């Protein structure tokens, strides 16, 4: 069974309500119909009522639940809640909450939806800002981040040939604190979603002080911070990629005891450039299948879609959000 089928079966065991703020988009509606008909999740489509219903009808569907934020009975309650919690006038809260992204995030925050899948019609930045503002981050984290699950043909290392790369999509230039956050969040995601014992390698061009440079020191500092915050976490670095993945190299380059070196299953890159380029190298040159970027760090699961997402991409994103939600339980 491939990974996505595994997640789909997991989602079906406990179908979750997933809210889609861009309900009148036909790609979203097609994915939602598949989720509903397959009993994988309970999709809720937000948007202007006539437009959403017309989109669903054009696909031959009728059975989807839809919500028009501007006329929904919950709007006044959401506005009042937001205004109170953020100490803002109600008319200002209304501007934020009436927008489908804001309304969807309020549904997630209040537990009326388990997670949210959006971003097909808006920049990633807008989705992330609204989610951080309304849903918030998990306790102890200062940033949201992302990871790819990489399935590399013929590779036997990592975790049965799978590796996680973080953060390829969100934090451009994380400092040591943010890098420690990314490591901790990614380890938690790997344990919850995949049942792994995380072994986190914090990557650099230097291994254990072999280079004297602030960029390497930042990674070493992040390792220390992560160890202080999560003493049980198997994490090591800074280290080069070969020391993280190849045991013979690890033995040559790392002379202290390490549960990670040579057999890491999570690679945390020092910044977005490295993570994004590294991910695409493995995709393009090794033919890896990559799943994601999967967002993490929000208090409830959120998925950001590419504007070129297909119905299958949207379906898979919703499945992952549903599984993240059950894992968070």
């Amino acid at each position, binding site marked *: 069974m491939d990974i996505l089928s595994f997640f789909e079966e997991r989602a079906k065991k406990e179908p979750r309500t997933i809210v889609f703020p861009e309900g009148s988009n036909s790609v979203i509606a097609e994915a939602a119909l598949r989720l509903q008909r397959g009993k994988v999740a309970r999709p809720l489509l937000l948007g202007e009522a006539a437009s959403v219903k017309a989109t669903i009808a054009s696909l031959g569907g009728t059975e989807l639940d839809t919500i028009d934020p501007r006329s929904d009975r919950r709007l006044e309650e959401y506005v009042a809640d937001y205004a109170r919690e953020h100490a803002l006038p109600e008319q200002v809260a209304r501007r934020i909450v009436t927008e489908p992204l804001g309304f969807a995030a309020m549904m997630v925050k209040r537990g009326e939806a388990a997670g949210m899948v959006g971003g097909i019609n808006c920049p990633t930045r*807008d989705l992330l800002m609204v989610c951080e503002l309304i849903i918030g981050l998990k306790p102890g984290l200062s940033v949201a981040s992302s990871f790819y699950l990489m399935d590399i043909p013929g590779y036997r290392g990592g975790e049965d040939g799978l590796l996680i790369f973080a953060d390829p999509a969100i934090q451009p230039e994380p400092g040591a604190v943010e890098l420690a956050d990314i490591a901790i969040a990614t380890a938690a995601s790997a344990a919850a979603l995949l049942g792994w014992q995380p072994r986190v390698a914090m990557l650099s061009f230097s291994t254990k002080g072999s280079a004297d440079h602030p960029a390497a020191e930042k990674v070493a500092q992040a390792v220390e911070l992560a160890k202080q915050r999560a003493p049980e976490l198997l994490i090591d670095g800074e280290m080069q990629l070969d020391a993280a993945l190849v045991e013979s190299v690890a033995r040559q380059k790392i002379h202290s005891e390490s549960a990670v070196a040579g057999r890491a299953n999570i690679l945390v890159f020092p910044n977005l450039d490295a993570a994004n380029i590294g991910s695409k190298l493995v995709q393009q040159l090794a033919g890896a299948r990559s799943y994601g970027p999967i967002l993490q760090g929000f208090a409830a699961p959120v998925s950001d879609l590419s504007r070129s997402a297909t119905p299958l991409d949207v379906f898979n994103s919703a499945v992952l959000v549903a599984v993240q939600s059950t894992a968070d339980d």
Partner: protein
Amino acid sequence: MSHIADVVIETVAAVAKKDAKEIGVDTRLAEDLMVKSVNRIELAALLEDRLEVPIGNFDILKPKTVGAVIAMIEAKKK
């Protein structure tokens, strides 16, 4: 100082939870006031409400200083 400048300074002070007297046109939103990008959604909504000018999430991310916010709104009002 113009009406727009007064309103912007009061609004920025409210979002940053600072005294308006501490804020001038050269005050930097991120570095001096620690206004995170997520809080700029609320800043935009408040300014839209108080000055009756549409401000998108992208627009409000661009200004680095209070003076730049004032200039952006004055340009929109023209």
